[in-house]
């Protein structure tokens, strides 16, 4: 695959990448790019110390959260990306783990939901983010897990899927967040696996790609959101994997590397990550296996949970 060339160029070049709107989500960009490199066995192409130094310069010691870039306000979106990147490099030791855990757990609301930051936007995305962050830090006990689970279950719809809030339309991205949070907290029994599994496999379009909602166009990013959810509920064999793999590979820029949302569109780091992660979930040769709940390479997750703790 040409992805490697695209990513390595991205890490080195200072121009011709993305537009200025990337600035405030640079920490997410780092997670997408570095996880992709690790999946391709090339994480050693970057200088770990430099990355960690930069990650920590986005840290807010007063709050315990991370901003999307140096000098930006903290938000759980970037806090999870920071923790995940530190996991890739096995460097959680640089964190004040209690402080970070206090930050994310402090955003739980009375009804069990989570806000993304002090301004209070509530979304099931943030439920997943907080639960995943705390699990990676071995601090899930800091939140009321039962209430968190109850809130997610209250967002379940008649089609078996989940939305951003109670009554919100089912959407593959939100479904990943809800299923992931339920998987991490050992609460998958709240899901009607056959009903949700059918909705998810209905997302496969004729050309093989997956969409995120009925009647929408297929997009490479749903390769991750839908496949990971199907794996977590043990129904991934219900879709046509060969056709999906072909769709993803057709979205590659064969000259310069990278993957786009659909064939013949411009590549970007977001879709490159989701394409490679999707291939990983389908055990594509040469790509490391990925954990569907923690969104990290399986060996990284194993290192965190199987290592004997001090």
């Amino acid at each position, binding site marked *: 695959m040409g992805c490697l060339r695209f990513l390595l160029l*991205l*890490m080195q*070049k*200072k*121009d011709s*990448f993305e537009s*200025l*709107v*990337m*600035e*405030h*989500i*640079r920490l997410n*960009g*780092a997670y997408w790019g*570095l996880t992709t490199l690790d999946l391709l066995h090339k994480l050693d192409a*970057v*200088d770990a110390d*430099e*990355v960690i130094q*930069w*990650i920590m*310069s986005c840290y807010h010691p007063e709050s315990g959260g991370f*901003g*999307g*870039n*140096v*000098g*930006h*306000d903290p938000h759980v979106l970037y806090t999870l990306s920071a923790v995940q990147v530190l996991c890739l490099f096995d460097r959680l030791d640089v964190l004040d783990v209690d402080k970070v855990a206090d930050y994310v757990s402090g955003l739980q609301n009375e009804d069990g939901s989570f806000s993304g*930051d002090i*301004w*209070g*936007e509530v979304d099931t995305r943030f439920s997943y983010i907080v639960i995943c962050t705390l699990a990676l830090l071995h601090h899930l006990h800091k939140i009321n897990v039962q209430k968190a689970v109850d809130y997610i279950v209250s967002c379940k*719809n*008649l*089609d078996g899927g989940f*939305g*951003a*809030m109670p*009554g*919100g*339309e*089912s959407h593959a991205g939100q479904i990943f967040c809800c299923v992931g949070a339920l998987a991490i907290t050992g609460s998958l029994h709240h899901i009607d696996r056959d009903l949700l*599994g059918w*909705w998810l*496999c*209905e997302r*496969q379009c*004729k050309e093989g790609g997956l969409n995120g*909602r*009925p*009647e*929408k166009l297929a997009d490479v990013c749903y390769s991750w959101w839908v496949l990971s959810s199907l794996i977590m509920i043990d129904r991934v*064999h*219900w*879709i*046509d994997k060969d*056709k999906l793999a072909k769709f993803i590979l057709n979205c590659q820029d064969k000259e310069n590397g990278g993957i786009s949302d659909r064939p013949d569109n411009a590549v970007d*780091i977001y879709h490159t990550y989701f394409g490679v992660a999707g291939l990983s979930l389908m055990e594509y040769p040469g790509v490391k296996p990925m954990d569907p709940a923690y969104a990290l390479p399986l060996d990284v997750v194993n290192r965190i949970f199987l290592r004997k703790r001090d």
Partner: protein
Amino acid sequence: MAPSSSSSSEGVDDWVPPSRRPELADVVPVPQDDGPHPVVPIAYRSDFREVMDYFRALYFAGERSVRALHLTAEVIGLNPGNYTVWHFRRLVLEALDADLQEEMNFVDQIAESNPKNYQIWHHKRWLAEKLGPDVANKEHEFTRKILAIDAKNYHAWSHRQWVLQVLGGWETELQYCNQLLEEDVFNNSAWNQRYLVITRSPLHGGLVAMRDSEVDYTVGAILANPQNESSWRYLKGLYKGENNLLVADERISDVCLKVLKNDWTCVFALSLLLDLLRIGLQPSDDLRGTIEAMKNADPETADADLATAICSILQKCDPLRVNYWSWFMTTVSPQI
């Protein structure tokens, strides 16, 4: 007088760089610190860079002033996704006790050209919460406007549902769902909204009170367009957790039969029929006859029971999901 929230009305040609504005003469710009070795380097446009440098200076100084409000409007114009700017703007608005209705007009303008931006919609919600129930209908008008351009915009729907449940304005919502489904009966967002209305609106008495008329409505929609995932799911959802009532309502098996008589390969009709058989439907002679005729077209299923035969047909009409239908067959076949 409340400060004006926007400075973006000036034409592009009149744009003066912050370094040449008298009102910012005392501000020392603060450049972005990307660290010594940026992991994901970003090319900045020079006008963007300068506005950001001045914004950073006021932001780090915590200056909650009219000129800070103007500068945040400019940064938002350049990059409405920058959440730190929105945070700071809210602090400034609070400190200045600004006119929030005017702020709503400002954010509405930005939202119209950036309808898929989380920060903008959150800012609107923050304002609507402060302004209270009086703005419910105005907010509904606004989401209507956005949904007229993209009827599936997730942010607009979330906002609309939040306003309904917190500030009200349910009176015309079912009618609005009718209108959207008339325009596009395949709009899953509109079907989802319809379910919200019949289950949560204080005006309609809830799902049980609405079920009968909703079954009629949905059957009509299915017969007009049988290849519609959303309407079939909605129909089944009307009887969620009430399998005995689902089987007992003859309109449900009838609509499957009617559709299959026209097109015996309709996956949704076959699938619902399977569900009905699995939970105990005793097929009518008409239904049995229709499926027998379909079986005859396929010698492989000649000896099979009805449910198994339907699974076998589905394996052929829906090859992408052949594994799903094969699994389904194992759940309906008599155990050997």
